[in-house]
């Protein structure tokens, strides 16, 4: 192949993303046929609004998982930021804009703490973020003492309930985040470094990639996005409670993994994550509209997750078998480049 075509080609659509796209279209068609309220602009925009918080957190989560890490603390961080926003305004007398800034900063700090322990003290991300999952939720509950905060001024609801050019305000933020994170992962040195770290951290280090700094940045970004999601969440539901965001980390991670990002690192795209988010949200909504109960909806989503991964790994095995060329050992295809700690 000529180097021109290689240079100009956009990041390829992985098999997994194509599979997802097909599933998504089929799901859309089926749900639209089952309920006449599903495929309407109003409903779709409303669904977009509902998925924004999870979606925003799924962006940095894609980065974190691409490096082979995980951030389980985002749901708790959202709760903590929401409480700090409400309490600093209501109880501590912060002006509301300052309270918002404070909440975002608290999210960033929460993420930074994760990143610091993970890079400086080599705490495994799973352990570290399980610990802060408990810690940040505990802080939220301790500060709020089970009291909720309501009665925000009208302008505050603009972000969560308002619209701009007919599209819910927070969706614009979400679009911007998709664009920014997608471009970073697909086209920049930072994105390339994330993948290199995910495949082989030692190799990346020995190539001069500032591994620790990059990890610190992405965990901080993850916390910051949890803060932003907290602001949107509070603005959307008009109240602040300490249990906000409970279990949300699993929705975020499910979307990222469904989107084809490998939990082992190195592989993943923002586009895939967006497909994952859309599929989960539309299934939830569509099934609810057609009268399926909540529990059954969750089961359907679990089944779709398993099915999509099966289809992809089947396709990959076929492809590998077709072109397996010169691995050093039969295991090489699964273990190559992965360092042993």
């Amino acid at each position, binding site marked *: *192949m000529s*180097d*021109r075509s*290689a*240079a*100009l080609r956009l990041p390829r659509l992985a098999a997994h993303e194509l599979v997802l796209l097909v599933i998504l279209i089929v799901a859309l068609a089926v749900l639209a046929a089952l309920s006449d309220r599903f495929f309407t602009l109003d409903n779709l925009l409303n669904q977009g609004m509902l998925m924004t918080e999870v979606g925003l957190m799924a962006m940095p989560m894609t980065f974190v998982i691409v490096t082979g890490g995980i951030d389980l603390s985002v749901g708790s961080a959202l709760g903590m930021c929401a409480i700090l926003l409400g309490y600093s305004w209501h109880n501590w007398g912060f002006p509301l804009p300052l309270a918002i800034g404070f909440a975002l900063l608290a999210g960033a700090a929460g993420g930074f703490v994760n990143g610091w322990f993970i890079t400086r003290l080599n705490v495994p991300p799973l352990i570290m973020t399980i610990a802060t999952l408990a810690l940040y939720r505990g802080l939220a509950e301790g500060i709020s003492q089970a009291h909720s905060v309501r009665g925000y001024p009208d302008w505050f609801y603009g972000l969560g309930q308002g619209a701009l050019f007919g599209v819910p305000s927070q969706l614009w933020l979400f679009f911007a985040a998709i664009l920014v994170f997608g471009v970073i992962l697909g*086209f*920049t*040195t*930072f994105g*390339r*470094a994330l*993948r*290199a770290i995910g*495949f*082989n951290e*030692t*190799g*990346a*280090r*020995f*190539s*001069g*990639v*500032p591994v620790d700094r990059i990890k610190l940045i992405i965990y901080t970004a993850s916390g910051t996005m949890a803060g932003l999601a907290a602001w949107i969440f509070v603005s959307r539901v008009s109240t602040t409670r300490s249990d906000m965001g409970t279990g949300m980390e699993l929705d975020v991670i499910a979307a990222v993994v469904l989107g084809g990002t490998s939990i082992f690192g*190195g592989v993943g795209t923002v586009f895939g994550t967006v497909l994952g988010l859309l599929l989960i949200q539309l299934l939830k909504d569509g099934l609810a509209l057609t009268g399926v109960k909540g529990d059954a909806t969750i089961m359907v989503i679990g089944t779709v997750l398993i099915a999509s991964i099966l289809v992809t790994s089947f396709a990959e095995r076929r492809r590998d078998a077709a*072109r*397996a*060329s*010169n*691995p*050093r*050992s*039969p*295991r*090489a295809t699964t273990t*190559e*480049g992965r*360092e042993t700690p």
Partner: protein
Amino acid sequence: MPPTEPPIAEQAPRAGDRMSAAAQQPVLALEGVTKSFPGVQALRGVSFDILPGEVHALLGENGAGKSTLIKIMSGVHHADGGTMRLDGQPIRLGSPLAARAAGIATIYQELLLFPELTVAENVFMGHAPRRRWGALDWPAIRERTRTLFAALDINDLDPAQVVGALSVGNRQRVEILRALSQDARILVMDEPTAALTEHDVARLFAIVRRLRARGVSIVYITHRLEEVFALADRVTVLRDGEHVATRPVAETDRADLIHMMVGRRIESLFPKTAVKIGPPVLELRGLSRPPLTRDVSLTVHAGEIVGLAGLVGSGRSELAQAIFGATPATGGSILVNGQAVRVRSVAEARRLGIAYVPEDRATQGLIRPMTVRENTSLAVLSDLARLGFIDRAAEARLAQETVAQFGVRTAGIEQVVGRLSGGNQQKIVLGKWLAAKPKILILDEPTRGIDVGAKAEIHRLMSELAGRGLAVLMISSELPEVLGMSDRVLVMRDGALAGAFPRAEAAQERVAAAMMGGA
């Protein structure tokens, strides 16, 4: 000591066996086997046979098709064409399991053992003797492990030992035992001595001879020609996927084999040419990072190749990684072009013009699941980017140039690096660091595990780079390489410098003596 001269004394009395062997029916015979992968014709009509109780060496440069051939024999790959006969009967090996069942066992370079389990558990993993209700029959397992030990005259291994605590040589013996416990008649060994100490090599040879005496046929892949002469009965040479020749070892010699492998006579393996030595480029003054780097002072000049000899574990790689900033030094100073500098990270080292080609290609040198393009650009990615955006065209150009300049055999720049052969992977590592235009090049075992042709190419390249004024520090465990390539030889022992020899005074015995210490 590098494993240079394995014991050769025992090779003489076998000439008679070989003559009678010629009349025997092969245990396994491959005829006209072809295999292609997208973009690569790996095997073109290769024929290969193994007689009962012979050691058959398989030689060839990296990419010659050795790995593909043994993978076909061991059921990992399926041939596109040609036939395979076991005891004269055509067979088709559908999977590694089928090959095992047919009595063909393969020992790969990466040993596939369970480090947390004991020797006996590893040996019988998957086919342990059972009692009623499927419970494991532990007394029988222990008993049969001991029988196997006795068969191979192994008396220094404990069946209850955990495999993870064993040396590489011992783990390899466990793999051999494992193969034997499944009644393997054909044992395929892929570069078994690549990671062994000299002592382990001698023990391995003893085992291989013992196996042969028991009638086991052995396919032995190696890059070390001495081993062919010490061990093998016949040798087959492959080149570019084609069968070049199969000869009794007694009827060939070293030059002949090299000629067959590379298709040309190599005048000298170590073509270091004399160049003008310039001013000092790299100076270390009392560099320390205990325990493996202790008060090291040395100077490397422009145009000079300084060889760093020493035993495995003497601290050579650790010193290199301290200079390179991967594990920054804790004491002493580094001067580059006479200026005192601090190297706290790899990125800083790169900016100072220091490049390090590590010994461990798989984890330190390359990101193997990434493509040739992504690997060649990784160390210089920021130079190929504007405002953080990678210039894909420039990146592709760099990769194309690297592939062309080093003659890398690859299907293209979008090929995944892990699928290239060892020598080609090493060329990518070198190319990746030369793209950073270094002034100081540290090479850690630059030719380990790569074939004669690629080795000569890398030596020629080193010479050329020194000629262009690079300061080269070369770590090598092969004394002939150190002595042939270096302007000066430094010796490390226990983390400190233990000797320095100008080229003229660097005799093999003196350097070796400095490596081993006075004791």
